């Protein structure tokens, strides 16, 4: 691939995606998380939520279903999918996210560098995504760090 440093500052195509309650339930089942707040509006309201909330890792669903898929993303970043590892993942929650919300997502590469270690070179690429709801409130920030083995 070309120099990974060229990715720094790259802005990805923005997109929007609805938070669907069916997708919330589907993710909770896949994880094996039986918390009733993800399955029932009544249970969520009883627990003090205004709607069905999203599990902390739900923003991945928005990313992959609303934005680039995994293979597409690898093409855009010019990374070899077979040599990619998920190094680090962070979510910051600044506001509530409920089923029925519409999220607008903007993403940018905030780190792109190479470290040479004993087992060869590793590229580190961090993408920051900012999630704004239909009221224009910034509700979450995600940072994913991918490790690309040479």
């Amino acid at each position, binding site marked *: 691939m070309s120099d990974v440093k060229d990715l720094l500052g790259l802005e990805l195509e923005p997109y929007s995606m609805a938070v669907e309650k069916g*997708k919330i339930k*589907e*993710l909770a*089942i*896949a*994880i*094996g*998380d039986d*918390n009733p*707040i993800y399955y029932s509006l009544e249970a969520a309201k009883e*627990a*003090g*939520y205004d709607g069905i*909330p999203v*599990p*902390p*890792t739900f923003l*991945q*669903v928005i*990313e*992959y*279903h609303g934005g680039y*898929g*995994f*293979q597409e993303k690898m093409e855009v970043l010019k990374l070899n*999918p*077979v040599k*990619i*590892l*998920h*190094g*680090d*993942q*962070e*979510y*910051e*929650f600044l506001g*509530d996210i409920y089923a029925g919300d519409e999220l607008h997502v903007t993403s940018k590469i905030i780190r792109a560098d190479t470290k040479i270690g004993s087992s060869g070179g590793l590229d580190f690429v961090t993408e920051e995504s900012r999630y704004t709801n239909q009221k224009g409130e910034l509700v979450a920030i995600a940072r994913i760090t991918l490790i690309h083995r040479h």
Partner: protein
Amino acid sequence: MYYEDLQVGAIFPVMKKDPITRVQLVRFAGASGDFNPLHTVEEVGEQAGTGIIAHGMLIMGMVSHGVTSWIPRKNIKRIQVRFSKLTYPGESIEIVGRVIEKKADNLVVAEVLAKNGEGDVKASGIFEANLPSRN
């Protein structure tokens, strides 16, 4: 759960997850939209030299399940995880956590680990929760 209830060093109850199955990885691929074939296709796993491995985000989902079993979802303000070892179908993940700091503004900081039955750490991280005061 109140800010005063948690002290530095407090250990949360261990959350034991069921063994990861291949069907679960297929289900997780569909739910998350992460169709990296390394998680579902035997030949791709062989080509990569690892065999089929679990999605890192499935492990982080389990970490989050543990965290939100300790502290309500609405109080979680930040969660960050570093993936340190690959996880394979058949492994059973346990989530353990411990309070490491109490900050101003009712913020509690805790560490969280995902381990298999042998104690290998698959993911380690930090979470921050904002908890109400009793008074």
